[in-house]
């Protein structure tokens, strides 16, 4: 193998795949990154068996070849190089990769690429397409509601339905996020997958944001239907799917409300953040109180003190109401709602609160309140 590749490209590509590098000691091979020539590009690949990432970087391929090299060392070395072409030459006899960039040289000892687990790709089968920035937004809105501990693995996943619309749902027992959007080329009959939220968040990290860009992401299932693949022009991310039955979330969606409040999102978020500082020592409880066109956001701690912020609100239905939420759940939701103003719908202090953007129906975030009498 002999390739020449701009340092910036290589560095960016390595940063993309680095998140799939495994640090597990039980399988040392997974701490490597695979370098393989592929036409006029260099393919970088890493996998932790749960998540695999391929990234193609433009390169001048002089001689084909493949090798696996320690990911961390390679990344650190490449990042330290000046912004100039990097030449990589593999000596197949001892699998040492000779690296050269301006006046810096390095030799990195690799292992046979055959040791590296294969990463599935999709050659045929149905492929769906979704604008990258939209998919990124959807993931960010939903994945925060997924559980981060493994005690009930199903909740670490995002229930993803591929049909005429693409919908994503995640819940962790206390809150639920649901987002849907039209899916280009979506099939009539729906397919549901449970994708680890962790994998989706990695995908979101890689995808470009900004609505102006029209880059598309292709979504496909592996032939044996146990992996999902996301593909952009230069990156392919493959994730294991979670098996099992996602609970029927539709039955917990509130069908009606008693009080509906419309408030500016950023003001609400600021107030919630301020309150969270005071709530830290008292189980993170933030209280909301609605009264004659105003929302008060309060928190108190016996040791530290208390605070209150007031926000003008449009209150529909019952004018006076109280509810308490965990500050983290509230700020998480307000952070991702992506709308100037939000609607908060509540029924009682013991029933779920619903947050939606005012101007669209395609996002819903449900938070269970906290029971408190103090």
């Amino acid at each position, binding site marked *: 193998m002999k390739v020449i590749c701009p340092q910036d490209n290589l560095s960016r590509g390595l940063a993309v795949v680095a998140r799939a590098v495994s640090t597990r000691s039980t399988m040392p091979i997974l701490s490597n990154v695979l370098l393989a020539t592929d036409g006029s590009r260099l393919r970088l690949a890493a996998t932790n068996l749960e998540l695999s990432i391929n990234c193609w970087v433009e390169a001048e391929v002089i001689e084909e070849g493949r090798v696996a090299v320690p990911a961390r060392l390679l990344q650190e070395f490449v990042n330290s190089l000046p912004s100039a072409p990097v030449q990589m030459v593999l000596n197949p006899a001892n699998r040492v990769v000779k690296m050269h960039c301006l006046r810096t040289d390095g030799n990195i000892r690799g292992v046979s690429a055959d040791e590296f687990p294969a990463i599935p790709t999709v050659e045929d089968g149905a492929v769906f397409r979704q604008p990258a920035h939209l998919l990124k937004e959807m993931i960010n809105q939903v994945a925060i509601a997924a559980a981060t501990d493994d005690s009930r693995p199903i909740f670490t996943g995002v229930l993803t339905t591929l049909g005429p619309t693409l919908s994503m749902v995640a819940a962790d027992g206390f809150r639920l996020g649901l987002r849907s959007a039209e899916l280009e080329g979506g099939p009539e009959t729906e397919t549901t997958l449970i994708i680890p939220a962790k994998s989706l968040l990695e995908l979101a990290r890689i995808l470009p944001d900004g609505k102006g860009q029209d880059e598309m992401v292709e979504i496909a299932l592996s*032939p044996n239907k146990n992996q999902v693949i996301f593909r952009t022009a230069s990156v392919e991310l493959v994730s294991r799917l979670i098996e099992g039955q996602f609970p029927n979330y539709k039955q917990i969606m509130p069908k009606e409300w008693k009080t509906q409040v419309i408030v500016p999102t950023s003001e609400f978020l600021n107030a919630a953040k301020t309150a969270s500082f005071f709530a830290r020592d008292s189980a993170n409880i933030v209280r909301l109180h609605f009264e004659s066109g105003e929302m008060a956001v309060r928190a108190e701690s016996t040791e530290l003190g208390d605070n209150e912020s007031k926000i003008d609100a449009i209150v529909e239905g019952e004018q006076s109401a109280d509810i308490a939420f965990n500050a983290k759940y509230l700020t998480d939701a307000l952070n991702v709602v992506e709308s100037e103003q939000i609607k908060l719908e509540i029924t009682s202090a013991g029933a779920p609160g619903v947050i939606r953007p005012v101007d669209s129906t395609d996002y819903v975030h449900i938070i269970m309140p906290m029971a408190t009498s103090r």
Partner: protein
Amino acid sequence: MIRALDAASAAKIAAGEVVERPASVAKELIENAIDAGATDVRIEIKDGGISLLRIADNGGGIPLAELPVAFERHATSKITSIDDLAVVATLGFRGEALPSIAAVAQVTLTSRAAGASSGGCIRLSGGEVLEHAPAGCPPGTTVSVRELFFNTPARLKFLKSPLAEGGQITRVVGHFALAYPGIGFTLLSDGKPVFQSSGSGDLLDVIARLYGPEVARGMLPAECNDGLQVRGYVSEPRVSRSSRGYLSLFVNGRWIQGRQLLHAIEEAYASLLMVGRHPLAVININLDPAQVDVNVHPSKAEVKFAAERLVYARVHQAVHGAVARYAPLTVIGRADPSGSAERQVPSAEDTETVWPTAGAAAVGPQWGPGFHGLEDLGGPRPALGTAPANAFQALPMLRVLGQLALTYIIAEGPGGMYLIDQHAAHERVRLDEIQRSRANDTGQAPDAQLLLQPLTVEVSPAQAAAAEAARPALSRLGLDLEPFGDRTYLLRSVPAALPLPAARETISAMLDELSAESASEGWDEAAEHSLACHTAVRAGQKLSAEEMDALIAQLERCWSPQACAHGRPTMVHFSQAQLEREFGRR
């Protein structure tokens, strides 16, 4: 035929305390029923078996004339001399149980032998026969034991609460049900059904009745036939408990403690379980009775194998065979060595068997060198200055240096070096959090986080009584459990301060603990401590530098940072002066 053993044989048979508590009475009487070939055994208890314990079976019965003999010491129908002991196939063989029980209680036994047209009744008090007469009764034997220890107040005093004693009996009945799936067991406590097995012969069925269908679905068959027979079920690694109380071992139908063999079971899981977690298992070992000595322990709870190593190896093999496919990342797909085309791996099988959380808990940022795995400080130890458990005693400013033996945090403060017990310290922190948001005496409801969907929590028969008794106390902590029929509850909220990710496991561990305790300290306090304990980090858990810093910071804010929930110290202090003395600097 029941007859007295010859004196020599009798003397050789280990005597000893047969009757220690109601549960041991239940055990002896159930064994007799099983030995008599019963297919249906009904156990009724009142006040945890202290005021009444009645066991009715449909077995072979005892002829009227032999009733008094059954209560004579060393009278047994099961062996004739000590030589038979080597091949004893019945559970009883000493002829000791009935007389021992009769000596310390009021006992009535009615029985109708198989084929006999009528039965008989014998009544004893403190070992004296009061009555022996024909009586009408159904085939089989019914033994009623009333007022246990009425004539030995010293022993009566040592009994725990009826709840705790009843819990022990439930455990014993559960063991028999697991060992004999073909026998239908029914347990009633104070008139209420506590447990019932169908007698269908299906062990998985009994497991479902005992531990809940959820657990039964997570059990894997374990088997090994090589020199001896090992059969049973073990849990998938994802199903685990915080105590060893769910490991049941049987040798030729006899429940045993068998520490070594329990170790063999856990060993087979190797690193599949996190520190402090234990599997559930039901393992039946069947082998030639001559190969096992059951007469080494008065209550027969320990046995001795002629080929100890072989038994250990076979049990290990059986369990390993069942769980091996869960071993993390042992088999992975390799790229096709012949060309550059990559095969479609990991395949369905592979990804399924990759155990998602193996080792995950142990991954964390590394901190400074040297301290890991240090089991001992070595050399002569300085006298430990144990910090007094004073309330309001503020903690000095501490800087975390590292973790010792995955159990203690090493920290430096103005006064020298501190070793902090990570579990005790975190338990202290938890207790403070719990107390801050729990219901209080002024009638204030607890702060609680409601659940999006209630979580069903199944409790075992042994936990059921404690669950009912402790429910009000749990709800005052914010753990709202609503009865949902048949030993099932709906969890509607968790304490505000604790998200309780593994709520089912935590509650189960708490109920195990609460059912074993006599509720002397009061349910509220017991529940609070138990919750703090079961949500705190364990010894053996690797902590990252950030986690240790956070724990110390939280500990500093505690009301009484230097004593854990149980009053033990959370930290020991080595003063600067002590250290200097040790190193001969002074």
